[in-house]
């Protein structure tokens, strides 16, 4: 069974849960920006949670099905159509051979996950089908999908229509979006007033935000505690001697525009990182459109772990619901 791409959308890519284990070699984990939505989409169509799906950002693709399949679309509210008939989001539906799946204008969120029963079965690279275009790994020959691509799938007809994720378990950011932050190793580099200002200010998602990093604008420039820069660090106070970056860490080059490193980020460099977005909120970032208002909320480790546990429980409830 294959999916024929009639129109790829903007930058629609094949993603699964990524390729952890190579970040120390500079190869990012990759995988879905909203892992919760990808897992839910796979559960709806009876796939293993880590099966490969399509991640459509801001615009949907047009796909012709060459045989029947169960399909589900989760994440962003991108109105779903099968041969121009509407379908419900976060709910499984059937597509017959010869029918075309397409999408209307994005209503909210940023990334929709399209799961097909049997999963997309393009070749794995380093244990994952996730597309990492800069490294030409995964996806279709290392790139996002293009017109005329024919994507192979596992071919099962799946569990059929009508399986649905209850509304209260469809996790999406609010407006303004609240992103919880655990201050990190370099927090001491900020003056007390400037650190407080980071959390008081309202920020907006910059249009250049992508799978590597989400950039934010509009808050006050940060002020640093004066020091003599150590040997090996650049002259700007936002520079450090090169160090490792973690998934979710927040760097602020020049102290002006925070950048949250996301799934396709670099693994190290010479900018201080004031802390990290907690793991439970990284999925929410994947659903932020440009110009969305955002507040950063300070939490401690206990709150971060409680949030992680809460998110896990939501996922477990979806598994039980769709069992």
């Amino acid at each position, binding site marked *: 069974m294959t999916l024929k791409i009639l129109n790829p959308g903007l*930058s629609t890519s094949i993603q699964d849960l990524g390729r952890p284990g190579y970040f120390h070699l500079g190869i990012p984990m990759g995988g879905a920006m909203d892992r919760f939505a990808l897992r839910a989409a796979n559960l709806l169509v009876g796939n293993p949670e880590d099966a490969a799906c399509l991640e459509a950002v*801001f615009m949907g693709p047009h796909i012709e099905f060459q045989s029947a399949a169960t399909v589900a679309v989760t994440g962003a509210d991108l109105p779903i159509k099968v041969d121009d008939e509407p379908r419900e989001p976060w709910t499984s539906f059937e597509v017959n051979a010869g029918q075309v799946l397409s999408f209307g*204008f*994005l209503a909210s969120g940023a990334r929709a996950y399209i799961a097909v029963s049997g999963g997309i079965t393009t070749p794995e690279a380093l244990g994952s089908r996730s597309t990492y275009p800069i490294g030409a790994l995964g996806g279709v020959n290392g790139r996002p999908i293009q017109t005329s691509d024919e994507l192979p799938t596992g071919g099962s007809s799946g569990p059929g229509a009508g399986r649905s994720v209850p509304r209260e378990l469809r996790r999406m950011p609010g407006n303004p979006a609240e992103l919880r932050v655990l201050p990190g190793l370099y927090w001491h580099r900020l003056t007390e007033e400037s650190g407080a200002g980071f959390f008081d200010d309202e920020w907006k998602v910059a249009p*250049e935000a992508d799978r590597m990093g989400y950039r934010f604008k509009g808050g006050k420039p940060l002020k640093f505690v004066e020091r003599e820069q150590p040997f090996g660090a650049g002259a700007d106070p936002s520079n450090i001697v090169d160090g490792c970056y973690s998934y979710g860490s927040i760097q602020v080059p020049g102290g002006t525009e925070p950048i949250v490193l996301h799934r396709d980020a670099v693994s190290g460099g010479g900018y201080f990182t004031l802390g990290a977005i907690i793991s439970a909120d990284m999925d929410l970032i994947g659903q932020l459109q*440009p110009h969305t208002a955002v507040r950063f909320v300070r939490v401690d480790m206990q709150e971060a772990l409680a949030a992680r546990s809460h998110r896990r429980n939501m996922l477990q409830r979806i598994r039980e619901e769709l069992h």
Partner: protein
Amino acid sequence: MSQVLSPLPGTFYKKPSPDAAPYKSKGDQVAVGDTIGLVEVMKTFIEVKSDASGTFREYLADDSCPVMAGQPIAGLE
């Protein structure tokens, strides 16, 4: 009368470059597939094309300003 809608969210531009003239001016003929403006998102500029033909009336979105997916950016008659 018809409208050209932005297919995606981002920052809208009426001109191909800062020093250039806008893509269309009042009274210009517009054919299906003509570029009306640009939307910048994820370090990429995407051309917004008209899916209708007619006579260009006006831009409905401001240059260098945020637009949403589905927002009208130009009116034709």
